[in-house]
């Protein structure tokens, strides 16, 4: 059972997410990786429109459509790939802007479960019309070095992913 986090933790989590977003948008990706615990999971699901799942008024569920289910090792490979100079889908690096909103921090024993919504804007070559929407649910742990992400579960609010996913969420 979770309960609302207090003012202090809520504020810390907000700052943590905003500093995290800076690291992605400024391409300090190794610093970003350092925000994950060693056994972290980074997961993303996609939405669909399945009748079976539909009681009246229930939501399209993200069924078996898993886009990411990375451990930290593979997440690190994603970052290292961008450094090879050969990942041309990010050459030159895309411009990204992470708008992270609706942050809700709850306590779950020693952990914090933090929910947030996002709008990620991406501009690349001549295109500046790529937008990703979704929500995140993070499991955060407090460590001596600050908060760390033990698990990030993202649901992307798209049926059709607008572009291959060369940024992070």
């Amino acid at each position, binding site marked *: 059972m979770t309960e609302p986090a207090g003012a202090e933790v809520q504020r810390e989590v907000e700052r943590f997410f905003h500093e995290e977003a800076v690291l992605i948008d400024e391409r300090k990706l190794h610093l970003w990786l350092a925000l994950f615990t060693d056994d972290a999971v980074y997961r993303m699901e996609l939405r669909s429109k399945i009748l079976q799942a539909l009681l009246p008024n229930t939501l399209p569920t993200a069924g078996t459509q898993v886009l990411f289910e990375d451990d930290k090792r593979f997440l690190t490979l994603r970052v290292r790939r961008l450094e090879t100079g050969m990942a041309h889908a990010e050459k030159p690096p895309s411009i990204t802007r992470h708008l992270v909103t609706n942050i809700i921090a709850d306590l779950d024993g020693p952990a914090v479960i933090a929910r947030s919504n996002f709008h990620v804007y991406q501009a690349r*070559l001549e295109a500046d019309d790529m937008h990703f929407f979704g929500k995140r649910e993070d499991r955060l742990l407090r460590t001596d070095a600050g908060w760390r992400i033990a698990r990030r579960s993202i649901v992307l609010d798209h049926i059709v992913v607008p572009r291959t996913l060369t940024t992070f969420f």
Partner: protein
Amino acid sequence: MLIDERRSTDKLVDLERGLLSRRVFTDPDIYKVELERIFAKCWLFLAHDSMIPKAGDFMTTFMGEDHVIVTRGRDGKVHAMLNTCRHRGNRVCLFDSGNAAAFTCTYHGWSYDTAGKLIGVPFLKEAYYDELDKSEWGLVPVPRIESIGGMTFGSWDPSAPSLTEYLGELGWFMERLVLGTWNGGLEFVTGRHVYTARANWKIIAENFAGDHYHTSVTHASAYKLGLAPHPAGYEDVQDPNGPFEVALRPGHGAGGVYTGRPPFERDLAVAERLGPEVVAYAKERYARLTEVMRDAPCVPYRQGHGNMFPNLSWSGQANATGGRSFYLLQPKGPLHTEIWIWFAVERNAPQAVKDLVRGQSGQMGQLPSGFFAQDDAENFERVTESARTTVAKRYPFNISMQLGHEGQWPGQEKWEVAGIPGLVGPRYGEHSQRLFYSFWAKQTGLDTEA
């Protein structure tokens, strides 16, 4: 039009010189011809049996740009029909998939059964005086539906050749390697993933059909990270056991074909990491495969990528430890394509293999989160954009690699390819693409008319 772009006598597809007009990728009028003469004529993928196993199961898809419902009828058969009411055309099914007894139009309430039959018309007596002939106003059925190894295809052309005839030399590959029908066939293990690329569908299709040449450059970052062995020189890459790119009449391609024991042994090494059950399975499977391949003494073991004309591509390994990914390239205008993706494994594969396949799907592969898709999609987009502009359009693409050497490839005497149908060529070649575009030209009739 004030400017006639066809003023030149140049062919769109010039197989003598190995040239391909850029206009085929971007001209809106050519795209309309494709919709009529390719997507409304050729055999198109509809569904795999495992997507709609039970009576009443349905999924919706596109054939060209037409929205289509594919169902498992009460008769157990697969049906396909336009998802548009015959009254005022409203869409009758609003979902991606599900199970339904009937499809009821939300405008005036006409309803259709899962075979498309018009079964209900509100106030048929009072409003229509019972004069509407319901048998004439069912959902428009896809007139030809045939299947192979659990994969159902449809064609809008009543006089189309049979699916078998249309598959031509690809049929052999489909059954033996892509679908593994001799091993229980496939099971689709994920939902449908979709992403969109600002690219013409053909540059994607031809890539899967036979473009092994791009891998070492396009996917260099993955090689650099050691995620796959980097092909260095030609000797390394053209072993007598493969990989081969095979052009398959009338317009298909299957590449990354490896024959004989070496690919099996590499597979066994993976199997060992997965445990004795998988090793046993791989060995037993190889024995059965050898049996199945009696007409192909070289025993093709692995098959990496391919395309069934026009728009069903796949990749994977077709071996004991690997899965397959299928890509349905849904055209959305000349400049946009939706890539619909499913993952499948052989139904008989051990659970450990199924788990492995599911786990890998989002990382290295062709999901929008996968390295390979990211590398490929951006190339496809830029190719398409460059085929659109005024001066660039005057300069055809070069599809001339090894033109004139078909079937007489240097060194081919060493290749272990006995019994493989089709035009078997080396890893690096454009013979499959030339076949793809020549069939395209034939289907569209554009060069003939010009």
